[in-house]
């Protein structure tokens, strides 16, 4: 497999958890982790129609001399050949460019803030912008390394939800784990969701990959999300609806990510999924 996952290494216990999570993901999904050990506190990612500057905090630069060693050790323990990313171009002498044709990227919930600030329900603004402009799904790791043993896809019917669903199929196919689909039923009926699947010609895949389709009808979100297994990789789409609608009603992604602590794989609007 020549698919690659970008990981930005932080040489700290917290960073170790994140890297372990990335390695686990890579092994399940059969991608190669590519590790970037930052040498400056900032870097640029040039996407198709946006450029995002990522400002790291100083903890990313801590004890640089051992960073390479630590990362290599973790990777080798997992039996993965260490691959490191070395930026080729620099926008300014302290501002390296990181190219963006990776297939996945792993992020902590917040790239730039201190670990004390990382709580549930908080996704840093830069992680958001990466999700919004990236052509790859972003893996937002749980704070502590946790193996996941099944896949849970949230499907709400938007274009991005279809992408998330297809990505779920793909991961299911590669990793061979059980895939459950969850739908938060709001005003529409269960049949209307099923009709959406029929319209998109995904029935065959649905029956082939999906273990069970849950329709969550409880009153509160917390109750609903209790049904999601704690050890599942949650795949969901972000920014699926129109800007205005999100502005008024809030995004479903926000609600979900603030309630559960699973590993999240978030699909942005620029990602096009292939099963």
């Amino acid at each position, binding site marked *: *497999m*020549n698919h690659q996952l970008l990981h930005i290494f932080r040489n700290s216990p917290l960073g170790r958890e994140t890297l372990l999570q990335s390695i686990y993901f890579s092994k399940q999904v059969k991608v*190669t982790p590519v590790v970037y050990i930052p040498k400056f*506190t*900032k870097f*640029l990612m*040039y996407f198709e*129609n*946006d*450029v995002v*500057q990522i*400002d790291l905090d100083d903890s990313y630069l801590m004890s640089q001399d051992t960073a390479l060693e630590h990362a290599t050790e973790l990777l080798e323990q997992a039996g993965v*050949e260490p*691959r490191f990313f070395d930026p*080729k*171009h*620099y*926008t*300014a*002498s*302290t*501002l390296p*460019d990181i*190219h963006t*044709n990776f297939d996945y990227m792993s992020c902590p919930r917040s790239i730039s803030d201190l670990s004390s600030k990382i709580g549930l329900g908080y996704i840093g603004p830069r992680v958001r912008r990466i999700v919004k402009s990236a052509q790859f799904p972003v893996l937002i790791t749980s704070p502590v390394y946790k193996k996941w043993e099944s896949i849970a896809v949230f499907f709400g019917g938007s274009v991005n939800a279809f992408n998330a669903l297809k990505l779920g199929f793909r991961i299911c196919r590669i990793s061979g784990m059980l895939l459950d689909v969850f739908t938060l039923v709001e005003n529409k009926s269960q049949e209307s969701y099923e009709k959406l699947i029929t319209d998109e010609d995904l029935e065959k895949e649905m029956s082939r990959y999906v273990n069970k389709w849950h329709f969550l009808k409880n009153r509160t979100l917390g109750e609903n999300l209790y049904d999601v297994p704690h050890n599942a990789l949650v795949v969901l789409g972000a920014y699926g609806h*129109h*800007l*205005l609608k999100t502005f008024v009603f809030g995004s479903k992604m926000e609600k979900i990510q603030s309630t559960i602590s699973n590993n999240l794989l978030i699909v942005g609007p620029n990602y096009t999924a292939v099963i």
Partner: protein
Amino acid sequence: MRIFQSWRYPANWTIFRLDDRLLLILVAIIVGSCSGLASVVLNRLLMVMFNWFHDLRHYWWIFVLPAIGAALSSLFLEKVVKEGAGHGVPEVIYSVSRYGGLLRFRSSFSRLISSALTIGSGGSAGPEAPVVISGAAIGSNIAKYFSLNDRQRITLVGCGAAGAISSIFNAPIAGMVFAIEVIIGEWKSVNIVPIAIASVAGTEISRILQGNQIPFSHRLFNISHMDILACVGLAVLTAAASILLTRLLRFMDKISKKLPAPLWIRAAIGGCAVGLIGLFLPEVLGKGYHEVQTMIEGAFSQGLAIVGLVTIAKIVATALTLGWGGSGGIFAPCLVIGCLAGLTYHHCLALLWPSVSWVNEGCFALLGMAGLISGMLQAPLTGIFLIVEITGGYEVILPLIIVSAISTTLCHYIEPAAYYMKELVEYGHLLRPGTDARVLSDLNVSELIEKDCIAVTQNMLLRDFISIVKKSHRNYFPVEDEETGHFMGIIHLDDIRQYLFNPVMYDTVFLGQIMNTRVEVVDPDDDLADVIRKMDANRLFSMPVVINNRFIGLISKGNLLDQYRRELMVQTSQSV
């Protein structure tokens, strides 16, 4: 709802889909106005700061003021907006070369503030480069907002730069020429038209808000033939001055980097030194437009020694300010140094040939400015048009062209890359459209991979291999490990041709024995220029592309030529 969505994608409207020129012109008006506004804001800021500090000029401790300003500006850039190091304009050209002009939103205001701090407090720098960056970033972000493509975005970046220069100098043609000559580097009507419009918009904004005035108006000059001859000497002098300035800037940059101190301390040291010079020669402080005005009017009544000293001092002060980490551009210092150089030259002439009636010293000051701008930027057209417009002196056009041309040429001999381009050229980032480097950087390895190779395994007999050769269209066969699928080596038909016709070897030779294991491989993320360099160095026609020890495909010069040519055709055709 639908309208709300679609107005952000104007490029998809039916009227703009087939021809986006009209769209670009409309957006160019917005971009030009915004960047014009940005430069007016900076101008006002500088004026306010100048008035604040003007009354303090006579205190002895005033020399720390530039230090405080420079330190604050450096802190602001480093800690608040977290801009990378570097003075900005190269960053714009870099982004235009490599990333379709994508610029960060923060660039659209960061340098305005930091340069206001540096220059307002007395640092010797100019406000032009900061407004160019701001304008360019505004253009880029407006393009981003409307989801325009790279080509349109690059044009709008140029529009922003043009609007900014036009507005700050009240010089539309100079703005237009600067954007095309320095920022975009491509003279095509698709670019020129929107940029011209943006220049008009920028100039108009500045005229509405600040009034229509020529920055450095002057009396009429009567230029004789002798004066034109004397221009040659002036050109040499300005070329020398610009090379001195370039070298000194780089030298200062180098020693400041060796100093083990935070950036803001370095900036403060530089500022302090400038302040000290300023105590004795206040002419070197700030952007110095007031001095330019006096010199052009011929009212700068100092002797040769003083003028010469001030010239050197201004060069040193500029190098100290910018080289040690202050924020600002070299445009304004160039104008001042040019003026001073012109004045020095005039005094020398008057001393050597007192009997000749030379033209007014203001004229030489004016020509000096053109010489220095042309020499530093190595953009003769920008120099010529800028000076003509900011002085309103069309009658000096002939000597102006001579000085600009000679100065550019001389500087080019000694410093092959202009001040802005120096770093870009060093790292191979200056990729003008239609050049080899640009075509190669646009293409990437994954577009050139040919996948119709048949893989073989190392334990295969030559006999079995021959039946594979029959089916294959290619001369190369990758050898893979049976179990892991790892790439082991490659078989090139040329290498084994002699064995192919020897039936005795068919059942005795394994492919593992005849494959070439020491092959240069390509990673799909490699730069194509490097790949070609490797091919040329090893006289290869094809190279295998390998990721993670797995063979992906082949990259060959034949296919490369095909793609290269198409890319070049699409990039350079003049019909659009």
